[in-house]
């Protein structure tokens, strides 16, 4: 798109897309502050190129792609320094990633009900790409779009969604109707 984008149109686009973008980043990172920083940075980078794109029309996919990359990069950068080992109730060693806190803060507990907590915990058990894939699918993106956002092949995107859905169905069996329990 050529020419200067009227500022109000871009502001409206940010206001419209920010809630979902931040929610998506929060789920990938589980650190609200980091998630907001990532989203802010992605908006800045896209808005700096507003002359090249029609952001209000096509920007959401670009935004989600940028957020996915930034979140995965951030997690990857932190991992070597932040992994911990602990034993579960059966004495088995578990790797704890502080980027995915197992212990939900009281603030988060107050914010979310039992179901939300269960979904949050089930999502955080998934590998990041599976988590992103099933979230994008739940938001109505097609397999082709998910593939573009995650930069994988469409068949890979399908596999990621399928595996994530299966794992969530097992974790959330208590909240699902009997016919979908696995």
């Amino acid at each position, binding site marked *: 798109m050529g020419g200067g984008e009227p*500022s*109000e149109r871009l*502001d409206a686009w*940010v*206001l*419209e*897309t*920010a*809630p*979902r973008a*931040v*929610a*998506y980043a*929060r*789920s990938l990172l589980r650190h609200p502050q980091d998630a*907001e920083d990532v*989203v*802010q*940075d992605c*908006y*800045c980078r896209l*808005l*700096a190129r507003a002359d090249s794109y029609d952001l209000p029309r096509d920007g*959401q996919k670009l935004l989600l792609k940028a957020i996915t990359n930034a979140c995965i990069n951030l997690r990857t950068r932190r991992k070597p320094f932040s992994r911990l080992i602990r034993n579960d109730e059966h004495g088995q060693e578990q790797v704890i990633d502080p980027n995915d806190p197992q212990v939900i803060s009281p603030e988060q507990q107050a*914010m*979310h009900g039992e*179901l*939300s907590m269960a*979904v*949050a915990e089930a*999502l955080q058990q998934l590998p990041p790409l599976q988590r992103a894939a*099933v*979230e994008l*699918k*739940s*938001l*109505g*993106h*097609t397999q082709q*779009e998910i593939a573009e956002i995650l930069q994988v092949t469409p068949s890979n995107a399908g596999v990621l969604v399928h595996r994530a*859905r299966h794992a*969530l*169905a097992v974790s*959330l069996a208590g*909240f*699902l*109707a009997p016919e*979908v329990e696995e």
Partner: protein
Amino acid sequence: MSLPGPSPAADDPVERLVRDYLDRSAATVDAAAMLVRVRAAQMSQPAPKPSRWWQRHRVSLAFLATAAALLIAFVLGGGPEPQPLTAAQLIREAQQTHATASDHCYEVVAEWNPGAFNRTKLPPVTRTSRLWTRGDQFWISTALPGRPPLAWGQDRDGRVWATANPSRGFIYEPEELGAPLSRYCDLLSLRLVTTLGELLQRYDLYRRDSGQPGEPIRIEATFRPMPGRPPPRYSHVVLEIDPETKIIQSAELERRFHGHPVGKLKFRLVETSQLPDDQYTLAGHLNPDAIVIDREAARQGSTDFRIRTREEVLKWLQFQAGAGLPPRK
């Protein structure tokens, strides 16, 4: 909550759970705050570097541009008129101006329509107060009939304080305030994100001045209904902004209740100055040996009378925030 993007497929029960979870999380996001952060970050970033092609040719391009400008100026007798700033751009500039550490004093008048209070069986309230603001801090002096004026405000940690005499004061933690009083504090402090940011997000904005030099900027904001979201407290807002300094000179906010106008809250700038820092804290309004009753003091050993008084003052502040109206349904 209305969110953009692909239509939700989510026929699958697992996806429906994930979708609901994301929607609940999205509902807690302050989009206006994100917009302000993004715009502020953009302003603090250096201008993008020119491309190599541009760098190679910039001298000759600059020469050509200058020649073209001179030719246009010669033929037309002047350069193109600068585009006037839009209402949204002006509100963003006012946000930035009011974020600085200068002190502005406003006379605040709450005018309520007499008929509006028939159903609530409460007397109409007309109050005049003087409000000092500095960024996110404010303090206000309100005249009470037959009593000394009450001074109250919000410090930089978000705590609200109040005192009716220099020997005793009360402090309330942010979580004690309740939503209406918190919103009222946002309004009085002319807090950028929540008040002017809400105008940017939820109102249609119109410039009503002619843009002539020296004429105050006048912006009208009309609430834009959004499906699934309750209407804000103020349906119509008129702002007057100084064209040079971008300081808000006056604001008029129309309050509606059950769809009917019930009154107006009017702000008028009366003074710009530099106050001592402690004026925005309780200590600046008390004697050195005054008694301060905060939440901890109320819990531990304070007299029943002091605890009750502290609660009554908080109720009064909350009533002030609702301006005598029952809570919005």
